[in-house]
């Protein structure tokens, strides 16, 4: 069931096991806890060295919460997040503030909104150089040289270091966010909807930059987005989340060509493909995404699943490796006929 069995420990940079994050629902003047929102409800996944693991799911599926817990920004309710940066092995869920600061040298985040994730009162020099100042005491000319190098790396000019965030465009701000993340030469970068706020032409520039940096520095990414084509494009492997759980993990190509979970198939056939000839391929799913405060019994997807049986309502299906490198949390994967939808032109052409 766990990936550990096959992949040697050292090849895995980040191992998330049985991770849970519940947020209490409080009511009344006494703020009594009356229930909980199960944002992340038992997630197993791993990011291997030098790979991009994509994480896709609809709003409310828990992808951002998972990222924040994995990065140690919010405490976990249960489970573990083992990170093996710089030869150390630590469980992020058990670290204190000081220890986390040290681990964050190897693990950085790039956020969705470049408008609010940069301190508007700081010049770019300080934003990008802050971690160098704090961790290494870098100052003066050396700091400026290091920051210049980082800015040039992400396609900005050294003159940008005296600018404030409001003087930059959205794409430039996102480049600053990337430069800041690169400052301490991390091994893992968690990208949470990092290109979602950007225009198409700028988005492609940032995606290209992230791919180039990965190749050059041997980075690993946990790449989170709701946009299926962006995730598919960026990732070696993709994990699909629904209502706080991972329902399928496969290589990017495999997931698009041969999904083994009905929810993944639904995502593929609801994604608006930029091809007018694909119109009419949509398969509309009934109902809404249920509330994570009150997830359905058994498989959380069963009320919307066209293949659900009584067994699906009763049993919570585990995420199992049913074929080499292909995990699904559907107990009926062998009995049902699911269809792929390769979105890439070249692949679609070779299919026919």
């Amino acid at each position, binding site marked *: 069931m766990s990936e550990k069995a096959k992949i040697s420990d050292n090849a895995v940079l980040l191992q998330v096991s049985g991770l849970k994050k519940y947020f209490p629902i409080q009511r009344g003047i006494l703020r009594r806890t009356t229930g909980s929102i199960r944002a992340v409800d038992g997630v197993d996944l791993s990011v291997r060295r030098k790979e991009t693991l994509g994480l896709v799911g609809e709003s409310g599926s828990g992808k951002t919460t998972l990222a924040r817990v994995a990065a140690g920004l919010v405490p976990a309710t249960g489970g573990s997040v083992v990170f093996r940066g710089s030869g150390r092995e630590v469980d992020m869920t058990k670290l204190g503030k000081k220890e986390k600061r040290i681990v964050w040298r190897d693990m950085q985040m790039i956020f969705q909104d470049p408008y609010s994730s940069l301190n508007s009162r700081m010049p770019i020099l300080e934003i990008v150089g802050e971690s160098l100042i704090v961790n290494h005491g870098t100052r003066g000319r050396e700091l400026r040289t290091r920051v210049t190098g980082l800015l040039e790396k992400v396609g900005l000019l050294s003159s940008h270091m005296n600018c404030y965030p409001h003087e930059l465009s959205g794409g430039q701000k996102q480049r600053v966010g990337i430069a800041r993340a690169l400052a301490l030469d991390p091994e893992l970068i968690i990208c949470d909807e990092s290109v979602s706020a950007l225009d198409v*032409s700028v988005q492609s520039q940032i995606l290209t930059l992230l791919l180039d940096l990965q190749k050059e520095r041997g980075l690993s990414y946990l790449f989170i987005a709701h946009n299926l*084509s962006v995730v*598919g494009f960026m990732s070696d492997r993709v994990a699909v989340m629904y209502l706080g759980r991972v329902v399928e993990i496969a290589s990017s190509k495999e997931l698009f060509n041969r999904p083994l979970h009905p929810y993944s198939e639904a995502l593929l056939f609801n994604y*608006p493909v930029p091809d007018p000839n694909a119109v009419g391929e949509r398969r509309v799913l009934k109902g809404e995404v249920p509330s994570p405060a009150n997830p359905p019994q058994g498989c959380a997807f069963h009320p919307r699943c066209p293949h659900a049986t009584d067994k699906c309502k009763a049993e919570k299906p585990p995420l199992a490796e049913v074929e080499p490198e292909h995990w699904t949390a559907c107990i009926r994967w062998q009995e049902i006929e699911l269809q792929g939808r390769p979105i890439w032109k070249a692949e679609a052409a070779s299919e026919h």
Partner: protein
Amino acid sequence: MPETLLKVRDLAIRFQRDENIVYAVNGIDFDIFKGDVLGVVGESGCGKSVTGYSLLGLIPSMGGRVTKGSIRYERNGETIDLAGLPPKGEAIREIRGKELGMIFQEPMRSLSPVYTVGELIGETVRLHMGLNKKEARERSVELLRKVQIADPEQRVDTFPHQLSGGMRQRVMIAIALSCNPKILIADEPTTSLDGTIEGQILQLLRDLQNERHMSILFISHDLGVIAEMANRVMVMYLGRIMEIADVKTIFADPLHPYTQGLLRSNPSLASGPKSRLEVIPGIVPEATKKIAGCPFAPRCESAMDKCFKKRPPAFGPGKDHIVECWLYE
């Protein structure tokens, strides 16, 4: 030849932002036909939303001004210039919400939180169709059923904040459809939704369009959504039209270098995961300067001297496919 409902000619719109003038729309021509779904696509600041709002006479209330041009709307045999109507006058209010319906990106911000769903829909039908309270409620329930909201008799008494994002967008669509509009202006209607819920709303809009043969001005930054919804596509950049063609032509045989670049930089049109993506260099500049030539010239790899000096007129292989680019002179 399809019947033309709306003719936009040489339309220009400006906004005053602090000390700067923003040239949001700079002389654009297009038509909306009966039963037509005209997709408007472009990046932020290209003027696509402003164009939509101008048809509704909402520019003055947004602090802008129509400085040039006309929006000629055919109505019972006579032609009205929507650009020339007083923004709060009787005439535009007769048309807006009734003959020209609208849906916006963020349904939570555009729905008043103090009225129930029934009251929100009822307001429009009572105002424009002269229904009484009871009839308005019945019509509301019927419309909620039409937009596939489960238990419409109960939902009609709920408030917008009690509904999910997808449901709220359904309510917006119900309001927009309440008076059987001739033209629907849809501004990024699924941008705040994703995955299976976005799919549901797109399907609903398609079904309603087929059934009513309604014209839609469908504004979106998402080429996938445009490919799915539109039968004609208009590509905008910095307040100008770059190209107009039917949807299949735009995606299979785009002529304007900007259209070509937009398509190539889309990750789902790449050759596969982690492959090379073509990139349009540079960024979209702010629209605070008057541009003499083609606004895309500074980012265009095929730009010639002329492109920076003189604005290209509408060239094109045919009447249905026009491209504002000197390469096709």
